[in-house]
Protein backbone atom coordinates (compact mmCIF):
# COMPACT_ATOMS: atom_id res chain seq x y z
CA UNK A 1 0.00 0.00 0.00
CA UNK A 2 2.77 2.38 0.93
CA UNK A 3 4.58 1.55 -2.29
CA UNK A 4 1.44 2.27 -4.33
CA UNK A 5 0.97 5.61 -2.55
CA UNK A 6 4.62 6.47 -3.20
CA UNK A 7 4.28 5.71 -6.90
CA UNK A 8 1.06 7.73 -7.07
CA UNK A 9 2.75 10.70 -5.43
CA UNK A 10 5.75 10.47 -7.76
CA UNK A 11 3.47 10.42 -10.81
CA UNK A 12 1.48 13.38 -9.45
CA UNK A 13 4.63 15.36 -8.72
CA UNK A 14 6.08 14.63 -12.16
CA UNK A 15 2.86 15.63 -13.88
CA UNK A 16 2.65 18.80 -11.85
CA UNK A 17 6.21 19.78 -12.68
CA UNK A 18 5.50 19.38 -16.38
CA UNK A 19 2.20 21.17 -16.63
CA UNK A 20 2.72 23.74 -13.87
CA UNK A 21 2.96 27.29 -15.15
CA UNK A 22 6.42 28.78 -15.15
CA UNK A 23 7.80 32.28 -15.14
CA UNK A 24 9.25 33.57 -18.38
CA UNK A 25 12.16 36.02 -18.34
CA UNK A 26 9.60 38.72 -19.16
CA UNK A 27 8.61 38.40 -15.51
CA UNK A 28 5.06 37.28 -16.26
CA UNK A 29 3.45 34.05 -15.26
CA UNK A 30 2.28 32.04 -18.23
CA UNK A 31 0.99 28.61 -18.87
CA UNK A 32 3.36 26.49 -20.90
CA UNK A 33 3.64 27.68 -24.49
CA UNK A 34 2.53 25.52 -27.40
CA UNK A 35 5.01 23.95 -29.75
CA UNK A 36 6.48 25.99 -32.58
CA UNK A 37 5.64 25.04 -36.14
CA UNK A 38 8.72 26.83 -37.50
CA UNK A 39 11.55 28.87 -36.04
CA UNK A 40 11.19 31.77 -38.47
CA UNK A 41 8.31 33.64 -40.04
CA UNK A 42 8.46 35.98 -43.02
CA UNK A 43 5.29 38.04 -43.37
CA UNK A 44 4.94 39.91 -46.66
CA UNK A 45 2.49 42.82 -46.74
CA UNK A 46 1.67 42.35 -50.39
CA UNK A 47 1.89 44.87 -52.12
CA UNK A 48 -0.12 48.12 -52.27
CA UNK A 49 -3.63 47.09 -53.25
CA UNK A 50 -3.99 44.00 -55.46
CA UNK A 51 -7.19 43.52 -57.41
CA UNK A 52 -8.52 39.97 -57.17
CA UNK A 53 -9.36 40.00 -60.88
CA UNK A 54 -5.78 40.39 -62.12
CA UNK A 55 -4.21 38.26 -59.41
CA UNK A 56 -5.79 35.07 -58.16
CA UNK A 57 -8.71 35.17 -60.64
CA UNK A 58 -6.20 35.38 -63.51
CA UNK A 59 -8.34 37.55 -65.76
CA UNK A 60 -5.55 39.86 -66.90
CA UNK A 61 -7.32 42.41 -69.16
CA UNK A 62 -10.59 40.51 -69.21
CA UNK A 63 -12.26 42.04 -66.16
CA UNK A 64 -10.69 45.46 -66.31
CA UNK A 65 -10.37 46.77 -69.84
CA UNK A 66 -13.30 45.08 -71.52
CA UNK A 67 -11.16 42.97 -73.82
CA UNK A 68 -11.09 39.21 -73.79
CA UNK A 69 -7.49 38.47 -72.81
CA UNK A 70 -7.37 36.38 -69.64
CA UNK A 71 -4.26 34.79 -68.11
CA UNK A 72 -2.08 34.36 -65.05
CA UNK A 73 0.64 36.97 -64.55
CA UNK A 74 1.59 35.56 -61.11
CA UNK A 75 2.73 32.14 -62.23
CA UNK A 76 5.10 31.66 -59.29
CA UNK A 77 2.18 32.03 -56.92
CA UNK A 78 -0.69 30.38 -58.71
CA UNK A 79 -1.22 27.50 -61.08
CA UNK A 80 -2.49 28.67 -64.44
CA UNK A 81 -1.33 29.60 -67.91
CA UNK A 82 0.06 33.03 -68.66
CA UNK A 83 -1.70 35.38 -71.10
CA UNK A 84 -0.99 34.59 -74.71
CA UNK A 85 -1.58 37.99 -76.21
CA UNK A 86 -1.32 41.70 -75.37
CA UNK A 87 1.74 41.13 -73.20
CA UNK A 88 2.67 44.42 -71.52
CA UNK A 89 3.65 43.29 -68.02
CA UNK A 90 7.16 41.95 -68.66
CA UNK A 91 10.50 43.49 -69.42
CA UNK A 92 11.33 45.25 -72.63
CA UNK A 93 12.31 43.20 -75.64
CA UNK A 94 13.39 44.81 -78.88
CA UNK A 95 11.13 47.80 -78.41
CA UNK A 96 11.79 49.97 -75.36
CA UNK A 97 8.78 50.53 -73.13
CA UNK A 98 6.71 47.67 -74.54
CA UNK A 99 7.16 45.25 -71.64
CA UNK A 100 6.49 42.34 -73.93
CA UNK A 101 8.93 39.79 -72.45
CA UNK A 102 7.47 38.02 -69.41
CA UNK A 103 9.90 37.35 -66.55
CA UNK A 104 10.85 33.65 -66.49
CA UNK A 105 9.30 31.61 -63.73
CA UNK A 106 11.61 31.02 -60.77
CA UNK A 107 9.96 28.24 -58.79
CA UNK A 108 9.69 24.71 -60.13
CA UNK A 109 6.51 24.36 -58.09
CA UNK A 110 4.11 27.25 -57.56
CA UNK A 111 3.32 28.49 -54.06
CA UNK A 112 -0.12 27.01 -54.66
CA UNK A 113 1.50 23.59 -55.11
CA UNK A 114 3.95 24.04 -52.24
CA UNK A 115 1.55 25.56 -49.74
CA UNK A 116 -1.94 26.83 -48.97
CA UNK A 117 -3.85 29.53 -50.82
CA UNK A 118 -6.80 31.33 -49.30
CA UNK A 119 -8.68 32.23 -52.46
CA UNK A 120 -11.04 34.79 -51.03
CA UNK A 121 -10.30 36.68 -47.83
CA UNK A 122 -11.44 40.09 -46.59
CA UNK A 123 -9.17 43.03 -45.86
CA UNK A 124 -9.50 45.14 -42.72
CA UNK A 125 -10.31 48.27 -44.73
CA UNK A 126 -10.02 49.53 -48.29
CA UNK A 127 -7.14 51.89 -47.43
CA UNK A 128 -3.41 51.31 -47.14
CA UNK A 129 -2.66 52.46 -43.61
CA UNK A 130 -5.77 50.89 -42.14
CA UNK A 131 -5.00 47.74 -44.10
CA UNK A 132 -1.41 47.60 -42.90
CA UNK A 133 -2.55 48.22 -39.34
CA UNK A 134 -5.08 45.42 -39.72
CA UNK A 135 -2.35 43.05 -40.87
CA UNK A 136 0.03 44.00 -38.05
CA UNK A 137 -2.42 44.66 -35.19
CA UNK A 138 -4.99 41.99 -36.01
CA UNK A 139 -7.73 44.55 -35.67
CA UNK A 140 -9.85 46.88 -37.77
CA UNK A 141 -9.84 49.80 -35.33
CA UNK A 142 -11.92 52.67 -36.63
CA UNK A 143 -10.20 54.91 -34.10
CA UNK A 144 -6.76 54.24 -35.60
CA UNK A 145 -5.73 57.58 -37.05
CA UNK A 146 -3.49 58.18 -40.03
CA UNK A 147 0.02 59.44 -39.19
CA UNK A 148 -0.40 57.87 -35.76
CA UNK A 149 1.37 54.86 -34.33
CA UNK A 150 -0.74 51.72 -33.89
CA UNK A 151 -3.10 51.92 -30.95
CA UNK A 152 -3.08 48.22 -30.16
CA UNK A 153 0.04 46.03 -29.94
CA UNK A 154 1.59 44.82 -33.16
CA UNK A 155 2.76 41.31 -33.91
CA UNK A 156 6.34 42.51 -33.30
CA UNK A 157 5.50 43.33 -29.69
CA UNK A 158 3.64 40.08 -29.12
CA UNK A 159 6.49 37.90 -30.29
CA UNK A 160 9.20 39.95 -28.57
CA UNK A 161 7.38 40.00 -25.25
CA UNK A 162 6.04 36.48 -25.16
CA UNK A 163 9.09 34.81 -26.66
CA UNK A 164 11.51 37.11 -24.82
CA UNK A 165 13.27 38.12 -28.05
CA UNK A 166 15.88 40.80 -28.50
CA UNK A 167 15.18 43.72 -30.82
CA UNK A 168 17.24 42.42 -33.75
CA UNK A 169 15.16 39.22 -33.77
CA UNK A 170 12.31 41.20 -35.31
CA UNK A 171 12.64 43.42 -38.39
CA UNK A 172 10.15 45.53 -40.26
CA UNK A 173 11.47 46.20 -43.74
CA UNK A 174 9.57 48.88 -45.62
CA UNK A 175 9.97 49.73 -49.28
CA UNK A 176 9.88 53.42 -48.38
CA UNK A 177 9.07 55.99 -45.73
CA UNK A 178 5.83 57.33 -47.18
CA UNK A 179 2.30 56.61 -45.94
CA UNK A 180 3.39 56.49 -42.27
CA UNK A 181 5.05 53.12 -42.83
CA UNK A 182 7.91 53.91 -40.36
CA UNK A 183 5.32 54.25 -37.58
CA UNK A 184 4.29 50.62 -37.73
CA UNK A 185 7.17 48.97 -35.87
CA UNK A 186 5.54 49.31 -32.43
CA UNK A 187 2.35 50.55 -30.83
CA UNK A 188 1.42 53.08 -28.18
CA UNK A 189 0.01 50.34 -25.94
CA UNK A 190 1.22 50.67 -22.35
CA UNK A 191 1.66 46.96 -21.75
CA UNK A 192 3.73 46.50 -24.90
CA UNK A 193 5.03 49.54 -26.79
CA UNK A 194 8.50 50.63 -27.78
CA UNK A 195 10.37 48.30 -25.43
CA UNK A 196 9.07 45.41 -27.52
CA UNK A 197 9.28 47.19 -30.89
CA UNK A 198 10.96 45.89 -34.02
CA UNK A 199 13.90 47.39 -35.83
CA UNK A 200 12.63 49.29 -38.83
CA UNK A 201 14.58 49.94 -42.00
CA UNK A 202 13.61 51.35 -45.37
CA UNK A 203 16.59 49.97 -47.29
CA UNK A 204 15.84 51.82 -50.51
CA UNK A 205 16.52 55.03 -48.56
CA UNK A 206 19.28 53.81 -46.26
CA UNK A 207 21.19 52.11 -49.09
CA UNK A 208 19.88 54.38 -51.85
CA UNK A 209 21.19 57.78 -52.92
CA UNK A 210 20.42 59.56 -49.64
CA UNK A 211 22.01 56.87 -47.51
CA UNK A 212 25.03 56.52 -49.77
CA UNK A 213 25.58 60.25 -49.53
CA UNK A 214 25.09 60.75 -45.80
CA UNK A 215 25.59 57.39 -44.07
CA UNK A 216 28.18 55.44 -46.01
CA UNK A 217 31.31 57.32 -44.99
CA UNK A 218 31.20 56.76 -41.25
CA UNK A 219 34.41 57.25 -39.36
CA UNK A 220 35.84 54.06 -37.97
CA UNK A 221 36.55 54.44 -34.27
CA UNK A 222 38.56 52.03 -32.19
CA UNK A 223 36.23 50.10 -29.92
CA UNK A 224 38.38 50.38 -26.80
CA UNK A 225 40.48 53.51 -27.19
CA UNK A 226 37.87 55.76 -28.75
CA UNK A 227 34.33 54.43 -28.51
CA UNK A 228 34.49 53.43 -24.84
CA UNK A 229 35.60 56.83 -23.49
CA UNK A 230 33.11 58.50 -25.85
CA UNK A 231 30.25 56.36 -24.53
CA UNK A 232 31.44 56.92 -20.96
CA UNK A 233 31.28 60.68 -21.47
CA UNK A 234 27.84 60.36 -23.05
CA UNK A 235 26.75 58.25 -20.09
CA UNK A 236 27.83 60.99 -17.70
CA UNK A 237 26.00 63.65 -19.72
CA UNK A 238 22.89 61.45 -19.87
CA UNK A 239 22.99 60.82 -16.14
CA UNK A 240 22.99 64.57 -15.47
CA UNK A 241 20.12 65.01 -17.92
CA UNK A 242 18.32 62.00 -16.46
CA UNK A 243 17.46 63.98 -13.32
CA UNK A 244 15.19 66.29 -15.31
CA UNK A 245 14.32 64.60 -18.60
CA UNK A 246 14.19 61.38 -20.54
CA UNK A 247 16.16 60.12 -23.50
CA UNK A 248 15.07 59.40 -27.01
CA UNK A 249 12.13 57.05 -27.34
CA UNK A 250 13.58 54.42 -29.61
CA UNK A 251 14.10 50.72 -30.16
CA UNK A 252 16.02 49.19 -27.27
CA UNK A 253 18.86 47.48 -29.09
CA UNK A 254 21.62 46.46 -26.71
CA UNK A 255 25.10 47.91 -27.23
CA UNK A 256 26.09 44.63 -28.89
CA UNK A 257 23.08 44.81 -31.21
CA UNK A 258 23.86 48.42 -32.10
CA UNK A 259 27.41 47.43 -32.91
CA UNK A 260 26.09 44.58 -35.02
CA UNK A 261 23.75 46.91 -36.90
CA UNK A 262 26.58 49.35 -37.62
CA UNK A 263 28.74 46.48 -38.86
CA UNK A 264 25.88 45.42 -41.14
CA UNK A 265 25.58 48.95 -42.54
CA UNK A 266 29.32 49.07 -43.10
CA UNK A 267 29.23 45.73 -44.90
CA UNK A 268 26.34 46.82 -47.10
CA UNK A 269 27.99 50.08 -48.12
CA UNK A 270 31.25 48.28 -48.83
CA UNK A 271 29.59 45.52 -50.88
CA UNK A 272 26.71 47.02 -52.86
CA UNK A 273 27.05 44.47 -55.63
CA UNK A 274 26.74 41.57 -53.20
CA UNK A 275 23.06 42.27 -52.55
CA UNK A 276 20.98 39.27 -53.55
CA UNK A 277 18.59 41.11 -55.87
CA UNK A 278 15.91 39.36 -57.92
CA UNK A 279 16.89 38.81 -61.56
CA UNK A 280 14.56 41.66 -62.50
CA UNK A 281 14.93 44.38 -59.89
CA UNK A 282 13.80 47.48 -61.72
CA UNK A 283 11.38 48.69 -59.06
CA UNK A 284 11.39 49.46 -55.33
CA UNK A 285 9.60 46.28 -54.31
CA UNK A 286 12.22 44.08 -55.96
CA UNK A 287 15.14 45.97 -54.41
CA UNK A 288 13.41 45.86 -51.02
CA UNK A 289 13.27 42.08 -51.34
CA UNK A 290 16.99 42.00 -52.18
CA UNK A 291 17.88 44.05 -49.10
CA UNK A 292 15.45 42.04 -46.96
CA UNK A 293 17.38 38.92 -47.88
CA UNK A 294 20.61 40.55 -46.73
CA UNK A 295 18.98 41.41 -43.39
CA UNK A 296 17.82 37.81 -43.07
CA UNK A 297 21.29 36.50 -43.87
CA UNK A 298 22.92 38.81 -41.32
CA UNK A 299 20.47 38.76 -38.40
CA UNK A 300 18.44 35.56 -38.98
CA UNK A 301 15.35 37.29 -37.56
CA UNK A 302 12.68 35.26 -35.88
CA UNK A 303 10.09 37.50 -37.49
CA UNK A 304 10.67 39.54 -40.65
CA UNK A 305 7.87 41.67 -42.01
CA UNK A 306 8.40 43.04 -45.51
CA UNK A 307 6.17 45.77 -46.89
CA UNK A 308 5.80 46.14 -50.66
CA UNK A 309 3.62 48.75 -52.37
CA UNK A 310 4.62 49.45 -55.98
CA UNK A 311 1.33 47.97 -57.14
CA UNK A 312 -0.37 51.12 -55.92
CA UNK A 313 0.66 52.84 -59.15
CA UNK A 314 -2.68 51.46 -60.34
CA UNK A 315 -4.33 54.72 -59.26
CA UNK A 316 -3.07 56.27 -62.46
CA UNK A 317 -1.34 53.67 -64.64
CA UNK A 318 -2.78 50.22 -65.22
CA UNK A 319 0.09 49.02 -67.39
CA UNK A 320 2.59 49.86 -64.64
CA UNK A 321 0.29 48.13 -62.18
CA UNK A 322 0.39 44.92 -64.22
CA UNK A 323 4.17 45.15 -64.32
CA UNK A 324 4.34 45.73 -60.55
CA UNK A 325 2.05 42.74 -59.90
CA UNK A 326 4.22 40.57 -62.14
CA UNK A 327 7.37 41.79 -60.36
CA UNK A 328 5.82 41.30 -56.92
CA UNK A 329 5.25 37.65 -57.86
CA UNK A 330 8.79 37.39 -59.21
CA UNK A 331 10.25 39.05 -56.09
CA UNK A 332 8.24 36.89 -53.69
CA UNK A 333 9.45 33.77 -55.48
CA UNK A 334 13.04 35.01 -55.35
CA UNK A 335 12.70 35.69 -51.63
CA UNK A 336 11.40 32.21 -50.90
CA UNK A 337 13.94 30.58 -53.19
CA UNK A 338 16.87 32.35 -51.51
CA UNK A 339 15.59 31.77 -47.97
CA UNK A 340 16.17 28.09 -48.69
CA UNK A 341 19.90 28.76 -48.74
CA UNK A 342 20.09 30.80 -45.52
CA UNK A 343 21.42 28.60 -42.72
CA UNK A 344 18.90 28.14 -39.87
CA UNK A 345 16.08 29.60 -41.99
CA UNK A 346 16.18 27.00 -44.76
CA UNK A 347 13.46 24.43 -44.24
CA UNK A 348 12.55 26.08 -40.97
CA UNK A 349 10.56 29.09 -42.12
CA UNK A 350 6.94 29.82 -42.88
CA UNK A 351 6.20 32.65 -45.29
CA UNK A 352 2.82 34.38 -45.37
CA UNK A 353 1.73 36.91 -47.97
CA UNK A 354 -1.49 38.92 -47.72
CA UNK A 355 -2.39 42.15 -49.53
CA UNK A 356 -3.40 45.01 -47.23
CA UNK A 357 -6.37 45.72 -49.54
CA UNK A 358 -7.76 45.02 -52.96
CA UNK A 359 -8.94 47.45 -55.64
CA UNK A 360 -12.24 48.69 -57.03
CA UNK A 361 -14.49 46.82 -59.39
CA UNK A 362 -14.91 49.84 -61.66
CA UNK A 363 -12.13 51.96 -63.08
CA UNK A 364 -11.55 55.64 -62.58
CA UNK A 365 -11.29 58.06 -65.49
CA UNK A 366 -7.52 57.93 -65.92
CA UNK A 367 -6.14 55.93 -68.81
CA UNK A 368 -2.51 55.26 -69.62
CA UNK A 369 -0.45 55.07 -72.82
CA UNK A 370 -1.98 51.65 -73.65
CA UNK A 371 -5.42 53.17 -73.18
CA UNK A 372 -5.94 50.99 -70.10
CA UNK A 373 -8.10 52.45 -67.38
CA UNK A 374 -6.81 52.77 -63.81
CA UNK A 375 -8.36 51.59 -60.56
CA UNK A 376 -8.54 53.09 -57.06
CA UNK A 377 -9.54 51.28 -53.88
CA UNK A 378 -12.67 52.26 -52.00
CA UNK A 379 -15.57 49.92 -52.84
CA UNK A 380 -16.54 46.42 -51.68
CA UNK A 381 -14.36 44.83 -54.36
CA UNK A 382 -11.41 46.52 -52.66
CA UNK A 383 -12.06 44.39 -49.56
CA UNK A 384 -11.53 41.22 -51.61
CA UNK A 385 -8.05 39.80 -51.15
CA UNK A 386 -6.24 36.46 -51.20
CA UNK A 387 -3.75 34.93 -48.77
CA UNK A 388 -0.84 32.55 -49.09
CA UNK A 389 1.11 30.40 -46.64
CA UNK A 390 4.07 28.22 -47.49
CA UNK A 391 6.79 26.42 -45.58
CA UNK A 392 7.32 24.04 -42.73
CA UNK A 393 4.14 22.38 -41.49
CA UNK A 394 1.94 24.21 -44.02
CA UNK A 395 -0.29 21.82 -45.98
CA UNK A 396 0.68 21.66 -49.66
CA UNK A 397 -1.66 21.86 -52.65
CA UNK A 398 -4.36 23.28 -50.48
CA UNK A 399 -6.99 25.74 -51.69
CA UNK A 400 -9.23 27.26 -49.04
CA UNK A 401 -12.42 29.16 -49.82
CA UNK A 402 -13.76 30.47 -53.11
CA UNK A 403 -15.38 33.54 -54.64
CA UNK A 404 -18.72 32.43 -53.26
CA UNK A 405 -17.31 31.20 -49.98
CA UNK A 406 -14.89 33.73 -48.50
CA UNK A 407 -12.75 32.30 -45.70
CA UNK A 408 -10.34 34.31 -43.61
CA UNK A 409 -9.55 37.94 -42.87
CA UNK A 410 -6.44 40.07 -43.21
CA UNK A 411 -6.53 40.47 -39.44
CA UNK A 412 -5.84 36.74 -39.12
CA UNK A 413 -2.15 37.30 -39.80
CA UNK A 414 -1.36 38.18 -36.19
CA UNK A 415 -2.90 35.07 -34.65
CA UNK A 416 -1.44 32.93 -37.42
CA UNK A 417 2.09 34.07 -36.61
CA UNK A 418 1.40 33.67 -32.89
CA UNK A 419 0.13 30.18 -33.66
CA UNK A 420 3.29 29.32 -35.59
CA UNK A 421 5.41 30.43 -32.64
CA UNK A 422 3.24 28.63 -30.10
CA UNK A 423 2.07 31.77 -28.28
CA UNK A 424 -1.46 32.07 -29.64
CA UNK A 425 -2.95 31.49 -26.20
CA UNK A 426 -0.98 34.39 -24.75
CA UNK A 427 -2.29 37.07 -27.11
CA UNK A 428 -4.82 39.24 -25.23
CA UNK A 429 -8.03 38.84 -27.21
CA UNK A 430 -9.31 42.31 -26.34
CA UNK A 431 -6.80 43.78 -28.78
CA UNK A 432 -7.89 41.62 -31.71
CA UNK A 433 -10.84 41.77 -34.08
CA UNK A 434 -13.71 39.65 -32.77
CA UNK A 435 -13.56 37.33 -35.79
CA UNK A 436 -9.78 37.09 -35.81
CA UNK A 437 -8.36 33.58 -35.88
CA UNK A 438 -5.30 31.65 -36.95
CA UNK A 439 -5.30 30.72 -40.62
CA UNK A 440 -4.36 27.22 -39.48
CA UNK A 441 -7.70 27.02 -37.69
CA UNK A 442 -9.39 27.74 -41.01
CA UNK A 443 -7.80 24.87 -42.90
Amino acid at each position, binding site marked *: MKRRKFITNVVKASTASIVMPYILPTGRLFAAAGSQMADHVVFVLFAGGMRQQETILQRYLDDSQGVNFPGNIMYNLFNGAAPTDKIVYGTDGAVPGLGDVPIPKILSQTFQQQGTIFKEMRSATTGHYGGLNGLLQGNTLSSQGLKRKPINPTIFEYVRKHLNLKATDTW*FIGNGIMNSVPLLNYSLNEDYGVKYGANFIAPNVVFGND*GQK*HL*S*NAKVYDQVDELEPMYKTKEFLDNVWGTVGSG*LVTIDNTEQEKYDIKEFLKYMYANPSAVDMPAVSDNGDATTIGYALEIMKWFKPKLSVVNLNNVDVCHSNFTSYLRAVHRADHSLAHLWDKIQSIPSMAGNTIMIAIPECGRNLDSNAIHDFNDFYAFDHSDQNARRIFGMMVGKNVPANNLVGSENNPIGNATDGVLTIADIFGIKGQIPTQYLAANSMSMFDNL
Partner: protein
Amino acid sequence: MNKKIFFLVCLFSIIIFSCKKDVSYGVDAINTMPPNAQKTKLKSNEQYISILYANLFQKALSANELVEITHCIEAFGDKETIHEVIVSNFMNKPDVIIPSDSIMRADIDIFLTNIYTRFYVRDITEAEKEYLTKFIEVNPAFTAEMLYTAFALSDEYQYY
Protein backbone atom coordinates in the same frame (compact mmCIF):
# COMPACT_ATOMS: atom_id res chain seq x y z
CA MET B 1 -20.14 86.80 26.51
CA ASN B 2 -19.34 89.81 24.32
CA LYS B 3 -16.19 90.33 26.33
CA LYS B 4 -15.10 86.78 25.66
CA ILE B 5 -15.65 87.15 21.94
CA PHE B 6 -13.82 90.46 21.95
CA PHE B 7 -10.95 88.82 23.82
CA LEU B 8 -10.73 85.92 21.36
CA VAL B 9 -10.77 88.24 18.33
CA CYS B 10 -7.95 90.28 19.86
CA LEU B 11 -5.97 87.14 20.62
CA PHE B 12 -6.27 85.78 17.05
CA SER B 13 -5.39 89.19 15.61
CA ILE B 14 -2.24 89.30 17.69
CA ILE B 15 -1.27 85.79 16.59
CA ILE B 16 -1.97 86.45 12.92
CA PHE B 17 -0.41 89.86 12.60
CA SER B 18 2.47 89.42 15.03
CA CYS B 19 6.04 89.79 13.84
CA LYS B 20 7.56 86.85 12.01
CA LYS B 21 11.12 85.84 12.36
CA ASP B 22 13.05 86.74 9.22
CA VAL B 23 14.70 83.51 8.13
CA SER B 24 16.15 84.87 4.91
CA TYR B 25 18.95 86.75 6.62
CA GLY B 26 19.01 89.20 3.74
CA VAL B 27 19.71 86.54 1.15
CA ASP B 28 17.51 86.67 -1.95
CA ALA B 29 15.55 83.56 -2.80
CA ILE B 30 16.97 81.77 -5.83
CA ASN B 31 15.60 79.21 -8.23
CA THR B 32 17.06 75.83 -7.29
CA MET B 33 15.97 74.08 -10.48
CA PRO B 34 18.77 72.43 -12.47
CA PRO B 35 20.04 74.64 -15.30
CA ASN B 36 18.66 72.33 -17.97
CA ALA B 37 15.20 71.93 -16.43
CA GLN B 38 13.52 74.31 -18.86
CA LYS B 39 14.24 72.03 -21.80
CA THR B 40 11.02 70.11 -22.25
CA LYS B 41 10.55 69.82 -26.00
CA LEU B 42 12.06 67.10 -28.13
CA LYS B 43 13.75 68.43 -31.25
CA SER B 44 12.26 67.25 -34.53
CA ASN B 45 14.55 65.34 -36.87
CA GLU B 46 14.96 68.48 -38.97
CA GLN B 47 15.76 70.63 -35.92
CA TYR B 48 18.27 68.13 -34.59
CA ILE B 49 20.11 67.84 -37.89
CA SER B 50 20.18 71.53 -38.77
CA ILE B 51 21.34 72.53 -35.27
CA LEU B 52 23.94 69.75 -35.20
CA TYR B 53 25.26 70.77 -38.60
CA ALA B 54 25.50 74.41 -37.55
CA ASN B 55 27.37 73.41 -34.38
CA LEU B 56 29.86 71.23 -36.21
CA PHE B 57 30.37 73.18 -39.43
CA GLN B 58 29.44 76.70 -38.29
CA LYS B 59 27.30 77.25 -41.34
CA ALA B 60 23.77 76.34 -42.36
CA LEU B 61 22.90 73.02 -43.94
CA SER B 62 21.36 73.30 -47.41
CA ALA B 63 17.63 72.59 -47.68
CA ASN B 64 18.24 69.65 -49.98
CA GLU B 65 20.70 68.00 -47.66
CA LEU B 66 18.41 68.61 -44.71
CA VAL B 67 15.64 66.71 -46.46
CA GLU B 68 17.99 63.90 -47.47
CA ILE B 69 19.39 63.40 -43.97
CA THR B 70 15.92 63.62 -42.43
CA HIS B 71 14.82 60.84 -44.78
CA CYS B 72 17.75 58.74 -43.57
CA ILE B 73 16.61 59.18 -39.97
CA GLU B 74 13.00 58.35 -40.81
CA ALA B 75 14.15 55.26 -42.67
CA PHE B 76 15.69 53.75 -39.57
CA GLY B 77 13.94 52.54 -36.42
CA ASP B 78 16.79 52.87 -33.93
CA LYS B 79 17.21 56.64 -33.71
CA GLU B 80 20.24 56.49 -31.41
CA THR B 81 22.15 54.28 -33.81
CA ILE B 82 21.30 56.30 -36.90
CA HIS B 83 22.25 59.54 -35.12
CA GLU B 84 25.60 57.98 -34.28
CA VAL B 85 26.13 56.99 -37.91
CA ILE B 86 25.23 60.49 -39.11
CA VAL B 87 27.52 62.21 -36.58
CA SER B 88 30.28 59.81 -37.48
CA ASN B 89 29.84 60.72 -41.16
CA PHE B 90 29.93 64.42 -40.29
CA MET B 91 33.17 63.87 -38.39
CA ASN B 92 34.70 62.39 -41.51
CA LYS B 93 34.05 65.48 -43.61
CA PRO B 94 37.04 67.74 -44.26
CA ASP B 95 35.22 70.97 -43.39
CA VAL B 96 34.07 69.97 -39.89
CA ILE B 97 35.28 72.57 -37.39
CA ILE B 98 36.55 70.98 -34.18
CA PRO B 99 39.15 72.68 -31.96
CA SER B 100 42.44 70.86 -31.72
CA ASP B 101 43.29 68.72 -28.72
CA SER B 102 46.06 71.13 -27.71
CA ILE B 103 43.54 73.96 -27.52
CA MET B 104 41.26 71.76 -25.39
CA ARG B 105 44.03 70.85 -23.00
CA ALA B 106 45.54 74.34 -22.87
CA ASP B 107 42.52 75.63 -20.94
CA ILE B 108 40.04 72.90 -20.17
CA ASP B 109 37.84 75.30 -18.18
CA ILE B 110 37.21 77.62 -21.08
CA PHE B 111 36.88 74.73 -23.51
CA LEU B 112 34.19 73.11 -21.40
CA THR B 113 32.38 76.39 -20.86
CA ASN B 114 32.32 76.95 -24.61
CA ILE B 115 31.14 73.46 -25.48
CA TYR B 116 28.27 73.70 -22.96
CA THR B 117 27.25 77.02 -24.45
CA ARG B 118 27.49 75.70 -27.99
CA PHE B 119 25.69 72.38 -27.55
CA TYR B 120 23.48 72.88 -24.51
CA VAL B 121 22.96 76.66 -24.63
CA ARG B 122 23.56 76.90 -20.89
CA ASP B 123 26.31 77.36 -18.33
CA ILE B 124 28.26 74.39 -17.10
CA THR B 125 27.75 73.49 -13.45
CA GLU B 126 30.66 73.07 -11.07
CA ALA B 127 29.95 69.36 -10.73
CA GLU B 128 30.04 68.89 -14.48
CA LYS B 129 33.21 70.93 -14.78
CA GLU B 130 34.88 68.95 -12.02
CA TYR B 131 34.02 65.56 -13.55
CA LEU B 132 34.85 66.38 -17.16
CA THR B 133 38.07 68.20 -16.32
CA LYS B 134 39.33 65.20 -14.40
CA PHE B 135 38.15 62.85 -17.17
CA ILE B 136 40.08 64.77 -19.81
CA GLU B 137 43.16 65.02 -17.61
CA VAL B 138 43.39 61.33 -16.80
CA ASN B 139 42.66 60.22 -20.38
CA PRO B 140 45.44 61.67 -22.52
CA ALA B 141 44.05 59.92 -25.63
CA PHE B 142 40.66 61.58 -25.20
CA THR B 143 40.19 64.07 -28.03
CA ALA B 144 38.04 67.12 -28.61
CA GLU B 145 36.31 65.22 -31.41
CA MET B 146 35.31 62.48 -28.98
CA LEU B 147 33.90 65.06 -26.60
CA TYR B 148 31.98 66.77 -29.42
CA THR B 149 30.56 63.41 -30.49
CA ALA B 150 29.45 62.58 -26.94
CA PHE B 151 27.65 65.93 -26.72
CA ALA B 152 26.06 65.54 -30.15
CA LEU B 153 24.66 62.12 -29.18
CA SER B 154 23.67 62.98 -25.62
CA ASP B 155 20.06 62.96 -24.47
CA GLU B 156 20.05 66.60 -23.39
CA TYR B 157 21.04 67.65 -26.92
CA GLN B 158 17.84 66.07 -28.23
CA TYR B 159 15.77 68.58 -26.28
CA TYR B 160 15.30 72.34 -26.24
